[in-house]
C-alpha cells in the first residue's frame, strides 16, 4: 500500500524535472565568449570544413568553433531571424545567390569564394554501360527516368533547369520523374534505382556512398556555382572571423581538404551561372 | 435539522420550484417521486454538490448555503455508490478519516467498528472489483457512516438490489438510523418499500413538492390526484360538477361495496353501474374485484370480504354490478388532471 501522499510524489517529480534541467544547463555554452566562433555552414560542405576547423583550432589554444549545419536557404532564414546576440560570425553557403541576398539585407559584409560546384550527369555505376548516356541531349531519350532538382529549390535545380532549357531540352524538365529538394536526395534517388539519371554537383557525386555507386558524365560548358564564405556584419569577433575565413579559403591545406572530399577548387573555364 | 426554504433551481430544461421541507432531528424522511422529478437534485443541494438559485438551506440551524461539501458533515451515499475503484475496501471506508489526518491506529479502530456493525469485515482487504451490489452498498454506507455524520442522505439505496432483499434492507437502514440517532433522507420511487420505515414522506412531482406529511397523511389524505395515484391510495374517481368543473376524489376499495345488477341501492349511498373485469386475490381476507364503470377512465377496485373457506368468489368477470359507497367517505383530490377525464 502506498503511504506517501500523492502531493509528496508530485513534489518529488518536479524536483526531478528541475534536476534534469539543471543537468542540461551544464551543457550550456557561453555565447558571449570572445574566443568562441560561431559558424553557419551548408550541410553539404561539412566534411572539408570540419577538417579545416580542427586544423584551425589546433593552432590556436583557447579558441573554439561551434558549427551549425543546415540547408543554405534555411541558414539564411535563421541568420535573418535570430536575435543579434545569437547570430553567428561566419556564414558558408553552397551557392552565392544566398550570400548576395544576405549582403543585400545587410547581414554579411565580406564574401569570398571557397570552391565551385560543377553540374554533372550521374547514373548508377552498374547501369552505366547499359544506359550509355554521353551528352545532355541523351537525357531526352524516350522512356528514360530523370530526376531533377526542384527549379525553385536547390541551386542545382535552378542551374540544371536553365541549362536544359538553354539547350532546347525543356522536355526533359517537364518529364522529370522526380523533383528533389536537395542534391543529396536526387543522388539517392538514382542510387536506389528510382530514377535512371540525374544532374547533381560533382562534389556530391564524389561523396560517401555516392562515390561508390554512381558514375558521372561531364557536361561541357555547364554553368558553375560558387561556394562562398561570408563574414556576418557587426560581429564582435570580426578579427577571429577574418582569421577563420582566410584560413579556410587559402593555403595548401585548404586545397587539400576540398579536393579530398571531391570539390572543384580551380576556377572553371566557363562563365559562372548568372 | 434539515431545512429547505423556498428553494428554486433550474438545470437545463428542468426546474425545481418552491421546495419547502423541514426534517426534524432524528426523523427518517423518505423523499418520494417518479424518476426525473428532482429528488437527486434536492439531495445534491443538501450535501452541497449543487447550488440553488433561490431560497436557503439550513443544517442544524445554521445556514449551509455557502459551505463547501467538506464542511457540511453530511453523509452521502449516491445511487451508484461511487466507490473509489483504485482503492481497497478498507481505504475506501477510511478515506474520510485519512483526509482529516487521523492516525493509522484511530483509522483502523473506527473502520473496524463500522465494518463489524454493517457485517462487512471479511471484505476489508479486498479491492472493489467483484463485490456484489449489496456489498458495494454497505461499503458506501460504511464510508459515510465512519465519519459519524448527523445527517445521512441515501439516494435510491435499494433500487439496485433484487426484490427479495429490498424490504429487509430498508428495515436494516431504519434500525441503523435509530441506533445512531441520525437524521436521514431516503430517496425512493417506491412507496410500498418505504412506508414502513418513514417518519415523514415528501412527494415530489416534476420539480414541485406535492405533499409533505406522515405516512398516514399521505396515504389516507393524499393532497392531489398525483399523490393518490403514486402511493396507490385507492380509486381515483373523476366527475364533472357544474360549479367546480372537473374534480377528482379518492375512494378506498374498502369503502365501497358491490351489488348485483338490479339490486336496490340503500338510501344515502351513491351508485355507479359497471361490469366486472377481473376478480383478484386482495391479500388477507378479501377479494379485489375490478369493475369497469361508465364514464370513468380507470377500473374501480372494490374490496369484497372473503370467508375463510375455499368458496369461489361471489362475482364473475363480465357480470353486471353496481358499486355503492357513502359519498361522505370520498376524499377530495382537488381539480382533476389529464385530458382523458370526462
Amino acid at each position, binding site marked *: 500500500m502506498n503511504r506517501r501522499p*500523492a502531493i509528496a510524489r508530485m513534489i518529488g517529480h518536479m524536483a526531478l524535472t528541475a534536476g534534469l534541467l539543471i543537468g542540461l544547463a551544464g551543457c550550456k555554452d557561453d555565447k558571449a565568449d570572445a574566443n568562441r566562433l560561431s559558424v553557419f555552414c551548408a550541410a*553539404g560542405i561539412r566534411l572539408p570544413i570540419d577538417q579545416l576547423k580542427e586544423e584551425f583550432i589546433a593552432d590556436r589554444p583557447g579558441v573554439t568553433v561551434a558549427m551549425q549545419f543546415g540547408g543554405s536557404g534555411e541558414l539564411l532564414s535563421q541568420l535573418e531571424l535570430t536575435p543579434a546576440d545569437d547570430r553567428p560570425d561566419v556564414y558558408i553557403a553552397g551557392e552565392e545567390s544566398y550570400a548576395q541576398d544576405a549582403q543585400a539585407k545587410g547581414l554579411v559584409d565580406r564574401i569570398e569564394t571557397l570552391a565551385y560546384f560543377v553540374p554533372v550527369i550521374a547514373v548508377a555505376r552498374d547501369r552505366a554501360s547499359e544506359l550509355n548516356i554521353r551528352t545532355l541531349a541523351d537525357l531526352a531519350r524516350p522512356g528514360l527516368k530523370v530526376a531533377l532538382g526542384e527549379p525553385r529549390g536547390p541551386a542545382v535545380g535552378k542551374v540544371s533547369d536553365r541549362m536544359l532549357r538553354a539547350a532546347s531540352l525543356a522536355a526533359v524538365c517537364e518529364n522529370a520523374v522526380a523533383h528533389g529538394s536537395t542534391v543529396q536526395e536526387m543522388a539517392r534517388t538514382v542510387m536506389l534505382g528510382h530514377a535512371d539519371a540525374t544532374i547533381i554537383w560533382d562534389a556530391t557525386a564524389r561523396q560517401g556512398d555516392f562515390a561508390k555507386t554512381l558514375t558521372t558524365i561531364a557536361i561541357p560548358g555547364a554553368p558553375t556555382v560558387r561556394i562562398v564564405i561570408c563574414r556576418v556584419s557587426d560581429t564582435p569577433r570580426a578579427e577571429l572571423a577574418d582569421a577563420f575565413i582566410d584560413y579556410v579559403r587559402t593555403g595548401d591545406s585548404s586545397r587539400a581538404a576540398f579536393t579530398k572530399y571531391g570539390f572543384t577548387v580551380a576556377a572553371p573555364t566557363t562563365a559562372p551561372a548568372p | 435539522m434539515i431545512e429547505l426554504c423556498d428553494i428554486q433551481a433550474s438545470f437545463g430544461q428542468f426546474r425545481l420550484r418552491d421546495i419547502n421541507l423541514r426534517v426534524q432531528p432524528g426523523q427518517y424522511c423518505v423523499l418520494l417521486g417518479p424518476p426525473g422529478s428532482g429528488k437527486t437534485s434536492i439531495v445534491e443541494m443538501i450535501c452541497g454538490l449543487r447550488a440553488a438559485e433561490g431560497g436557503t438551506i439550513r443544517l442544524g440551524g445554521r445556514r449551509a448555503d455557502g459551505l463547501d461539501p467538506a464542511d457540511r458533515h453530511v453523509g452521502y451515499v449516491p445511487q451508484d455508490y*461511487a466507490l473509489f475503484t483504485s482503492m481497497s475496501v478498507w481505504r475506501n471506508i477510511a*478515506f*474520510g478519516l485519512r483526509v482529516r489526518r487521523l492516525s493509522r491506529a484511530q483509522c483502523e479502530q473506527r473502520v473496524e467498528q463500522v465494518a463489524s456493525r454493517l457485517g462487512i469485515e471479511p471484505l476489508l482487504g479486498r479491492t472493489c472489483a467483484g463485490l456484489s451490489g449489496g456489498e458495494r452498498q454497505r461499503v458506501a454506507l460504511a464510508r459515510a457512516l465512519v465519519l459519524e455524520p448527523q445527517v445521512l442522505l441515501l439516494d435510491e439505496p435499494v433500487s439496485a438490489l433484487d426484490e427479495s432483499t429490498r424490504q429487509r434492507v430498508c428495515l436494516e437502514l431504519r434500525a441503523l438510523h435509530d441506533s445512531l440517532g441520525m437524521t436521514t433522507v431516503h430517496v425512493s420511487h417506491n412507496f410500498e418499500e418505504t412506508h414502513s420505515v418513514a417518519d415523514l414522506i415528501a412527494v415530489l412531482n416534476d420539480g414541485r413538492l406535492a405533499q409533505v406529511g406522515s405516512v398516514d397523511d399521505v396515504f389516507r389524505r393524499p393532497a392531489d390526484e398525483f399523490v393518490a395515484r403514486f402511493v396507490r391510495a385507492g380509486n381515483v374517481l373523476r366527475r364533472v360538477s357544474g360549479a367546480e368543473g372537473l374534480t377528482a376524489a379518492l375512494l378506498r376499495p374498502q369503502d365501497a361495496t358491490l351489488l348485483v345488477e338490479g339490486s336496490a341501492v340503500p338510501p344515502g349511498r351513491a351508485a355507479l353501474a359497471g361490469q366486472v373485469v377481473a376478480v383478484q386475490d386482495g391479500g388477507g381476507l378479501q377479494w379485489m374485484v375490478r369493475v369497469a364503470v361508465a364514464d370513468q377512465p380507470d377500473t374501480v377496485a372494490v374490496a369484497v370480504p372473503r370467508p375463510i373457506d375455499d368458496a369461489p368468489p361471489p362475482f364473475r368477470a363480465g357480470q353486471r354490478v353496481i358499486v355503492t359507497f357513502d359519498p361522505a367517505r370520498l376524499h377530495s383530490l382537488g381539480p382533476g388532471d389529464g385530458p382523458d377525464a370526462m
Partner: protein
Amino acid sequence: MSLPPARPSPDVSPADWPAPPPGGRVAVSLRGRLFVGWMIALGGIYLAIVVALLVGGLTYMDFSRFWETVSSPDILFAMRLSLLSSLTTVALALVIGIPAGYVLSRYRFPGKLIIDTLLDIPIVLPPLVVGVLLLIFFHTAAGRWIKANVNDPVFQPEGVVLAQFVVACAFGIRMIKATFDQIDPRLESVARTLGATRSQAFFRVTLPMARSGVLAAAVVTWARAIGEFGPILIFGGTMRGHTEVLPTSIWLELQVGDIQAALAVTLLMILLAMTTLLLFKRFGGQIRL
C-alpha cells in the same frame, strides 16, 4: 448445406452429418474463425509494413560500419542529449499537461472550444514552422526580455527541450484530457462530501485512477519528443557536441551522402527507443506518479 453442429459427440453422429476428419475435430465454427482471421489480417497489415521497413533497412546496412559510427564522440553526445532532453520534455509535459488536461476535461468556461482548438495547433503545424515561430518569438520584445532575465535557449540545449516540448506537450494534453474524461467527476464530488478539499479529491482519488492514462500519455510524449527534428534544426541548432540529437545526426550524415552512417544511427535510435518503450510498458505500472 448446413454447418456441422458445435460439438458432435463421436458416438452419436446421424448419417447426414459430414464425418469428422480423421484424428481431428470438426471446426468449432467456420464463420467464427473466418471473422477472427479477417480481423487479424487487416489489422496486421500495419505490423507488416513496419516490419518490412525495418527488415529493408537492416538488409541494406553495412554492419561493419555500425560500431565505428555509433561509438564516435559526436554520436555518443547526441545519444545522451536525446535521452536527457526527451525525458526532460516528458517531465515538463506532465507537470503542465496534467493540470491542462484536467481543466479542459472538468471545467466549463467561455471560449473553451477555441482554446481547445488552439492547443491542437502545434500538432497541425509543420515542425519546421514551429521552429521558425520560436525563433521569431525570441526576436520580439517579450522574447528578448526572457533571454536577458530568465534563460537564453536559442541554439542551446534548453532550446532543444523547448522545441521538443512545444510539439510533444500538445499530444500529451490531448491524451491526458481523454483520460480525465473517462473518470467520473462524481467520484470527486463524493470525495468532497467525505471531507476532502478539491485539491485532496484530485490527488487522492482522480489522479490515482488516471495513472494508466497518464502513463500512456507520457509514452506518446516521449516518443514524439525524441523523434522531433524540424524545430530543433531551426531553433535548437545542430551543433555537434552541443545541441546535436540523434535525428539531427542522421540528417547530417544524409547531407553528406553517407547513407551507411545514417542507417547506423537509425539502428541505434530504434534500439534505444525499443528499450525505453519496453521499460516504460513493463515497469510503468509501478511508477507512482
